[in-house]
């Protein structure tokens, strides 16, 4: 369980994180979503006690992180896969971490095997591909067999096989009852992996919800209809209070109604329907709508620039 209360971080004139409160419960994968520069990494650093909040607080399983004597047993984190001493072998990197928390060598071998790096354990990590470095970072996070796991953009730069591996790993970890907190700027990734969402923009909380609710809510679910008697149907629907928009392709987009209602109405009035379907915007569309105002960098045509996150 991670609980943030009024978390705020100011760098000079920039408010990187602004009065952010959220909860990450155990047994689920919680996606931490926001455009680049929204404050995700800063928030994660504050959770780990690396950056001090300007205001507010955050606890992990009820305590501030810095109070833990051997925190690797409580929280495993992957912030930046490249943040290792490249001259040290994968095994030695993990051993140094393990020793600091009283973890034995057998566990180092275990996690190396678990992430599939056993054969390159003696190789200097500076020569690793990004995918291998990500695996090493995840091995480090798993070292203490912690109840809370936190990964910052874990699928960035991974090949499809690596992406699949991460997805199944985080789901497995959550199914074991662990708290899993996963950041990404890609809604599509979260839609597949996460159960819950904490969405931020410009350092502020936009929405804390489940993936299901996020998709199901909203008035913009609509019914699409194609009919030779569209004009008649429109009149009938509008009498019932639905909002009908005629699209350029001569289909009708109907909000405030349902497939059942439209179908029944057509049958009762003897109207032919050539198409009747329910639509909901994708997670991605909905996310874009939500964060449109808080994206840090817009290009001239309105698309978002995606600078590389630290």
């Amino acid at each position: 369980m991670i609980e943030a209360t009024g978390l705020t971080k100011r760098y000079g004139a920039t408010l990187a994180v602004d009065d952010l409160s959220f909860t990450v419960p155990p047994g689920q994968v919680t996606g931490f979503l926001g455009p680049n520069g929204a404050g995700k990494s800063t928030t994660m650093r504050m959770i780990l006690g690396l950056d001090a909040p300007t205001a507010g607080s955050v606890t992990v399983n009820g305590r501030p992180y810095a109070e833990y004597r051997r925190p690797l047993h409580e929280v495993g984190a992957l912030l930046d896969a490249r943040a290792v001493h490249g001259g040290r072998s994968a095994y030695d990197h993990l051993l140094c971490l393990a020793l600091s928390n009283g973890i034995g060598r057998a566990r180092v071998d275990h996690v190396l095997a678990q992430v599939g790096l056993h054969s390159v354990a003696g190789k200097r990590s500076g020569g690793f591909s990004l995918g291998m470095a990500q695996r090493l970072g995840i091995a480090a996070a798993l070292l203490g067999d912690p109840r809370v796991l936190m990964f910052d953009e874990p699928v960035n730069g991974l090949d499809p096989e690596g992406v699949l591996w991460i997805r199944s790993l985080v789901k497995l970890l959550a199914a074991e009852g662990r708290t899993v907190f996963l950041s990404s700027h890609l809604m599509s990734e979260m839609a597949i992996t996460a159960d819950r969402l904490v969405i931020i923009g410009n350092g502020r909380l936009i929405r804390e919800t489940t993936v299901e609710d996020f998709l199901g809510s909203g008035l913009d679910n609509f019914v699409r209809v194609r009919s030779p008697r569209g004009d008649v149907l429109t009149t009938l629907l509008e009498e019932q209070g639905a909002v009908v928009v005629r699209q350029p392709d001569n289909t009708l987009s109907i909000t405030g109604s349902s497939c059942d209602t439209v179908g029944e109405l057509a049958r009762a009035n003897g109207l032919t329907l050539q198409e009747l379907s329910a639509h909901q915007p994708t997670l991605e569309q909905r996310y874009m709508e939500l964060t449109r105002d808080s994206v840090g960098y817009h290009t001239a045509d309105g698309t978002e620039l995606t600078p590389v996150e630290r």
Partner: protein
Amino acid sequence: MDAVARPRISHGPLPSFTDVLRSELSKLRSVRSTYWTLVAVVCNVGLAALGAIFVPGQLSGHEKETVDPIRLSLGGIHLSQVAFAVLGVLVISSEYSTGMIRTTLSAVPQRRRVLAAKAAVFTVTALVVGMLASFAAYFVFQAFLSDASLRSSIGDPGVLRAVAGGGLFLTVLGLFGLGLGAIIRGSVGAIAAVLGLLFVPPIVAQLLPSSWRDTIGPYLPMHAGSQIFALRHEAGMLGAWSGFAVFCAYAVVTLGAGFVLINRRDA
């Protein structure tokens, strides 16, 4: 995957400094830069042998009486001091330049304990290697010496102190570097700082009026620190131990600043 509800020892009452020490020792042991200091040992010994063979023939009778035979035998320190200063810096700055420091401080949130463990592990390592370099150089110098007038015995007054002083100087110099590394955090800047503070002030002092030079000269890091490995007291300089105390003070001040800053700044 192991069971989640395994009993834990994550917040025992007594934090284990030994764990952090073992971790830091393992870090020092597992990177190449540590072994560069062994190159310093080879340099020391090699230069001592060269000095023993070639220097006596170039000295006049008067020079042979006034030259400091221990300084001559420890001539390799001019090179090995660079290795020790750089290693001291890298012990901490390499973690900041690679980003490893965030992993380290997530594993051990008690930051001062991390810095203390780094300093302790470095001190022991540097003392062992520094003493080895110093004593090896001294004995090789004696073995290759062609001129009996420069010969000395380790039992002669001040000789043991001066030879051991070479190891002490290298160790404290490395700690001075470690302190600067903790303050500056970037490897390049911190290496420039420690070498700059070592080599530049004596040159600048030459440009000052002589009264100023005589006042501050003895207290410059290089001048104060090098007295401990000199057999003969140079005029106007501090004594062996008082000079060494001043040199230690430089290391203490920078390390102290490092201890204050590491808790205040974001990692």
